[in-house]
């Protein structure tokens, strides 16, 4: 069944523990994501972003509520049906890339294709297109341990796209990349949503991505609300110079009674080692 709404969550909740020790990781979250839409889920650490993403990705069952993917409710599906659904409808991109060490670039991208009709042979043409699109043609036989972080993430994106999924779920895809490589990956995901009509749902701390996202969902204490219409307080990362929304930033420090905001842990760490240098640069 094809519909414009590709992913829907109705009153989705996930509680861990019980009684007084019960933690409401996600509490009655409802959302809808359309084809071709790029949606960010942001929020402070421990707000339930990954738990929500796992439930939307059919990796974690909910305590209550319903997830509908491409018109099919997954609530009553067994493990094998969920696995088949993931293989067909969902592409995953992870912060740690999670490439398979023994397989080269081509084999990593083709890995999920064996779950699709026609297997890896039928996916060869698409593989060539993806390698070209992701700028990996010259690296097709390289093993993951010889790739840069950016290349690894591009391979992971290729792997997520090989089965032409309806939705890509990305968990901190720029978390292990420097700002330049992070930007590259973001633009790739943005193009995928725009050109392929594939919905991209991304959990991120990276405020730079906000600019290219269609919507930003703010998750705090397990509850979600749309944040695109809210006002921003833009400041500059003293290390990389990126524009950051002070309101949502999570990498913050104080130096000589002044507040500094960073795009990533990497920039924060750099600042902490040579604060004077970056303070003067800002001034």
């Amino acid at each position, binding site marked *: 069944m094809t519909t414009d709404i590709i992913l829907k969550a109705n009153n989705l909740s996930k509680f861990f523990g019980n009684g007084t020790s019960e933690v409401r990781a996600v509490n009655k979250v409802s959302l809808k994501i359309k084809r071709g839409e790029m949606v960010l889920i942001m929020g402070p650490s421990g707000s339930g972003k*990954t738990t929500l*993403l*796992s439930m939307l*990705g059919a*990796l*974690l069952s909910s305590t209550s509520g319903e997830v509908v993917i491409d018109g099919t409710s997954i609530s009553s599906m067994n*493990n*094998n049906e969920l*696995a*088949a*659904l*993931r*293989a*067909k409808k*969902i592409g*995953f991109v*992870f*912060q*740690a890339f*999670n490439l*398979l*060490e*023994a*397989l080269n670039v081509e*084999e990593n991208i083709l*890995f*999920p294709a*064996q*779950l699709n009709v026609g297997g890896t042979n039928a996916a060869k043409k698409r593989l060539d297109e993806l390698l070209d699109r992701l700028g990996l043609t010259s690296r097709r036989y390289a093993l993951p341990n010889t790739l840069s972080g950016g290349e690894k993430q591009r391979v992971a994106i290729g*792997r997520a796209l090989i089965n032409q999924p309806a939705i890509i779920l990305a*968990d*901190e895809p720029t*978390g*292990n990349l420097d700002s330049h490589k992070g930007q590259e990956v973001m633009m790739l995901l943005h193009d995928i949503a725009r050109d392929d009509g594939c919905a991209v749902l991304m959990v991120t701390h990276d405020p730079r991505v906000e600019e290219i996202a269609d919507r930003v969902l703010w998750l705090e204490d397990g509850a979600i609300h749309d944040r695109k219409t809210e006002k921003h307080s833009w400041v500059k990362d003293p290390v990389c110079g990126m524009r950051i929304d002070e309101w949502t930033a999570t990498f913050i420090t104080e130096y000589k009674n002044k507040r500094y905001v960073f795009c990533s842990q990497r920039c924060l760490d750099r600042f902490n080692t040579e604060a004077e240098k970056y303070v003067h640069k800002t001034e």
Partner: protein
Amino acid sequence: MIYWSLKTLFAEPMRLFISALAVSVSFLLVIFFSAVFEGESNQMVAYLKKMDADVWVMQKGVSNMHMASSMVWDWKVDKIARIAGVKDVSAILYLNGPVKIGGKDWFSYIMGISPEHKRTGPWDIAKGKAIPEPGEAVIPEVISKLAGIQIGEEIKMIDRKLRVVGLTRGTFSMASSVVFVSHKDLGELLEGRDQFSYIMVYAKPGVSAQTLVERIKDEIDKVNALSSEDFVESDWQLGVQMGAEILIMMTTIGTLLATLIVAFTAYSLVERKKQELAVAKALGFSNGQIYIAALCQSVVITGIGLLLTLLFAYTLLPWLPAIAPQINLAVRFHQFIPIAVIALPIAVVASFIAARTVVKLDPMTVFSG
């Protein structure tokens, strides 16, 4: 998934080789014990085979040589010689017991032989003389080396001191070496100078062993006669019965060891590749598909272990007696067959442990960046 499992396995060839080698060692252990058992069993009947008699005659009620005692009056030897169809007879006095050589007791087949009885002595002389006179003994060359005893030195049979005059080949066994002494010495010791234990009967051309057996049983009182084939088989079976339990035990230990090694290897592979398997699960591979990948690895490790076993068993093991002459090894291909048969069940059973980890694997771990 199977392609991934093979590539992952072969990506670390040294680890794979060590695992397969460990499997192979446990399989080799089983083959080694089978080969020793078969070698020892062969050696147990070596004397019977080498004498090449058509019929063996012994005391009534006796049907073995190993662990047996038999006494037949010497006049019966002459009587048997006169039976129609008998070409020749030879007789030995026999005792199954320890001989003290170089301060150590060697459990032996002690053959009391005399020069007038042909074809009763050693068949391969390494040094010295073959037929001992009274006060003399001919012992296996292997014992002389192990015990440090040379020709001219003394050994002790019960309370009788004998001088070594000859060394033989093909007569050593861990359980029953063949020591030759004079009929007179053994006869005095057993108080049976006018007796023999076993009579070897050689048939005239055209006369079958079975015909002779029937004639001997008809014409001679209180004796048992067996064709050489039946007598060898009877002793062989006795050896098999005695060693079967040990062999089964060693085979079981070897099999369990191999299963444990494959299981540990498969489990550690799954444990080390947990994150990758979680990724596979997240991407849509089912528990069954991932289990088949783990099983495939177990099968490959066991298969390579099996090939190494074949290689080592039939190229290296036969050289072992050159280093350790006390070991009688009979390495035969049929010893490999039960191992080849149990190899697949071993791989399947071993992969069960890995399967447990696969089922428990939480695909959520892919998010632990």
